[in-house]
Each structure stands twice: as structure tokens, then as C-alpha cells.
């Protein structure tokens, strides 16, 4: 299951989708949205994606994982659009006959998503907003109206 959605993520069925009796382990990652960032209170987040390329890159990551480990099932669901604090932005669930592979693969998937998948996160504060990761572009916008 590879999906990019604007809907609220219900992570339980996603996790259940990889739980099978051929597997002894399921490892799950939930990306959640923190209340504070850079010492300031986050009002909400906006996620944006270049969807066709993001789906392609997620499928490539799945290929990388199955080439490296004996992982039997993988589910990746990323939410985009307006997210509130505590919302789940990303669910990754992997399963394998033994647990070592699932622990390693799950972490690898999350790292690779953040390196290569074209999905961007904007944090909105009371006094401005930041596209995360864009500090090299000299970006922190102070909002004139709020």
C-alpha cells in the first residue's frame, strides 16, 4: 500500500494490512506534528507534494528495501494539505518473519523519504512561517497580517 492522501490517516487499518501469519514482526512509524519548533509554538502545518514523482520515489524506496532485507509487506501513507498539531502526517508499517529486518527497514524507509521524496512541510507560527529544510534558501517569512 503506497498512498498520498489529503484525508485524515487512520493508522490502524494501515498497520493491520501488513500483519499476516507468515510474519513474526510488524514495525510501525507514525510521523506526528509537534507543538513547538525552533522554540516557538506551531499553529498548524501545510504539506505539499509533487504527487506523481512522490509516488514514484516511494515505490523506488520499496524496491530498495526488498532488495536489502527479507521484508514481506510494506505500507506507506503520507498525508498532505492542512494538518493540525498532533495529527499523523506519515504512517509506515513493515512486516517480516523476524523482527530485526523490520526494525532496520522501517527506519531506512523514513530516512529515505525525508531525503528523496518531493513532499514539503511548512510550519506556520504566530509571527511567520518556514518551509522546513529551506534554510539554505534564506527563508523565514514574517507575516504582515494575522
Amino acid at each position, binding site marked *: 500500500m503506497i498512498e498520498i492522501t489529503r484525508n485524515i490517516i487512520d493508522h490502524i487499518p494501515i498497520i493491520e494490512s501488513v500483519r499476516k501469519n507468515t510474519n513474526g514482526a510488524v514495525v510501525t512509524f507514525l510521523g506526528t506534528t509537534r507543538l513547538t519548533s525552533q522554540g516557538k509554538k506551531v499553529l498548524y502545518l501545510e504539506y*505539499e507534494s*509533487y504527487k506523481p514523482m512522490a509516488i514514484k520515489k516511494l515505490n523506488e524506496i520499496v524496491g530498495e528495501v526488498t532488495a536489502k532485507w527479507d521484508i514481506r509487506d510494506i505500507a506507506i501513507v503520507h498525508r498532505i494539505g492542512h494538518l493540525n498539531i498532533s495529527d499523523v502526517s506519515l504512517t509506515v508499517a513493515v512486516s517480516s518473519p523476524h523482527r530485526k529486518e523490520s526494525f532496520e527497514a522501517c527506519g531506512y524507509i523514513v530516512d529515505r523519504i525525508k*531525503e528523496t*521524496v*518531493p513532499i*514539503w512541510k511548512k510550519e506556520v507560527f504566530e509571527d511567520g512561517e518556514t518551509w522546513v529544510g*529551506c534554510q*539554505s534558501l534564506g527563508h523565514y517569512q514574517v507575516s504582515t497580517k494575522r
Partner: protein
Amino acid sequence: MEAYLKIKVRFFALYRERAGMAESVHTIPAGSSLHHLITLIRQRHPNLAPSETAIVAAVNTEYAQDDTILYDGDVVALIPPVSGGNRD
């Protein structure tokens, strides 16, 4: 062979906000490289990124190097740095 190519350029996230548009169409000479197109885009949108900061682009949903040759109908997406998240 056409003398000119029509390239669709897509802006995302910070680039979209700075360019003030989500996409535009550029007509460039056949045989042009991605580097040439990005130079034109920078001229049209000088606030897009500092000149010393590279602009990463994808051509038809694949990350591409500056010397990639473009073809008619290619879709070039400007990719600002992806959300890193903090590992620690």
C-alpha cells in the same frame, strides 16, 4: 526536428510562493540543457533562490543534472530542499 521546444515548468512549495505561480510554459531552442532553462527561470524570477544556491530540478519526475538535454513536452519541476526532519 522542431527548432524550439515547449517546456512546462512546475514550481513547488517555497519556489511556488516566490515565483507567484504554480506553473509556466517556456519556449527554448532545441538542444537546450536544463542548466539553460534554469538560467532563464532565474532571470524571470530573480528572487527564487540565492545565486550561489543550486536549484534542484526533476525532468519528467526524475532528478536531473544540469547538463540534461531537454525535449519538447518535457515537464521540469523545481524541487526546493525536501523536509529533512530531525533524526535526533
